[in-house]
């Protein structure tokens, strides 16, 4: 992020060379045809410039030529489509072992949370050589997470999670921009991605150590009295949540859902959208009760919750207001 002028942006992720590969192909095609057309126009315009009032002969056209300049571009664009699409699917498929980072965009800053509990504003520390998967949401309007040196971009939407992944190949500091216009201070919604050697990253992590994301989530799990119903005992009124992440969940009416991030988020904020088969719709919605950051902590906790790890129920706690009566008119 040195302020030096570079004509071509740094390539700092495994994706960057792939994208640039497609880019150079497109540039070659563009340059070739632009030069071809420009040269032909200039040659014709000069060679056939008007010298007399004599009228040129009429040429209707040529089916052969038309077919030629229909089929050749068609073949070229179909190849480009194939190539760019195959790179695209690489770009949207994070490796299984990616390190999770959670991002919340809001006017006008980026809030990052690591699973270890480290939190950052407008800076993202990551290790070099390791895939990182970002799970992102917005608290207000649409933002967009863009790191030019990594050639990655994804809009960050309110109301749901979108994801992005990268694997940095160079240490250093790289620009992070918001690229979806989001209001007055849009152009200041910028940050830095700090790519570090793995050892340095570990040191950084330790220096920032706080309660891990999952630990914070566990505290919330107890504080919000989730455990009262989601207990792993005979008196459980809600489904057991152990080893739930990425499992198939049977829903009512024979439907199924995969317990991914978006499912867990929805089931906390708006539990009755997808009722697990065999359970009563008694859980209150937590929309407006918890912040996006807290939801992320809860989801992070649920992801780590293994067999037999559900905390014990504290007898004194009362169940939450299970079913709130319809609200009176506003």
């Amino acid at each position, binding site marked *: 992020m040195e302020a030096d002028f570079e004509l071509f942006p740094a390539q700092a992720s495994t994706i960057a060379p792939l994208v640039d590969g497609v880019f150079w192909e497109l540039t070659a095609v563009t340059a070739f045809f632009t030069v071809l057309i420009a040269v032909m126009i200039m040659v014709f315009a000069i060679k056939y410039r008007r010298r007399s009032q004599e009228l040129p002969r009429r040429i209707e056209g040529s089916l052969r030529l038309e077919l030629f300049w229909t089929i050749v571009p068609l073949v070229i664009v179909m190849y480009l489509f194939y190539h760019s699409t195959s790179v695209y699917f690489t770009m949207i*498929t*994070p490796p299984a072992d990616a390190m999770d980072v959670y991002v919340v965009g809001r006017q006008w800053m980026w809030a990052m949370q690591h699973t270890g509990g480290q939190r950052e504003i407008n800076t993202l520390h990551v290790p070099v050589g390791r895939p990182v998967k970002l799970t992102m949401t917005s608290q207000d309007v649409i933002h967009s997470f863009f790191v030019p040196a990594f050639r990655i971009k994804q809009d960050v939407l309110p109301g749901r999670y979108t994801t992005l992944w990268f694997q940095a190949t160079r240490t250093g500091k790289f620009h992070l921009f918001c690229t979806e216009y989001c209001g007055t201070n849009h152009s200041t919604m910028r940050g830095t991605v700090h790519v570090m050697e793995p050892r340095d990253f570990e040191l950084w992590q330790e220096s920032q150590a706080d309660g891990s994301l999952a630990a914070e989530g566990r505290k919330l799990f107890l504080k919000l009295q989730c455990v009262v119903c989601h207990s792993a005992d005979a008196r459980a009124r809600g489904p057991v949540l152990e080893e739930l992440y990425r499992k198939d969940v049977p829903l009512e009416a024979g439907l199924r859902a*995969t317990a991914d991030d978006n499912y867990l988020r929805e089931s906390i904020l708006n539990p009755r959208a997808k009722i697990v088969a065999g359970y009563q719709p008694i859980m209150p919605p937590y929309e407006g009760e918890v912040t996006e950051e807290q939801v992320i902590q809860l989801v992070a906790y649920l992801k780590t919750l293994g067999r037999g790890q559900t905390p014990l129920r504290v007898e004194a706690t009362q169940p939450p207001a299970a079913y709130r009566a319809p609200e009176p008119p506003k």
Partner: protein
Amino acid sequence: MIAHATPVKTYCLIFGGLLLLTGLTVAASLAPLGGLHTLVALAIASAKAALVLLYFMHLADSSRLTWVVALSGLLWLAILIILTMSDYLTREWWRVTDG
């Protein structure tokens, strides 16, 4: 030359058909059809619309150009709805669950 003015009887028949279909669609909405309600309702509505278009609006004996205009309106409406839904209906398909 009055041949071109459709007989009153035809209009009345079409009108009768429209009333019949209206009754049918209300009845169908109350009948147990499982998941087919929307399909049946839209099919009946399309039939009614076709009757109005063909006879009341004389599309049946209009020029091909008029047909093209009417059909392109429908085609573009279909493009709008189908391509929009192609996003919504397939969004959930893409899940990276190989973790």
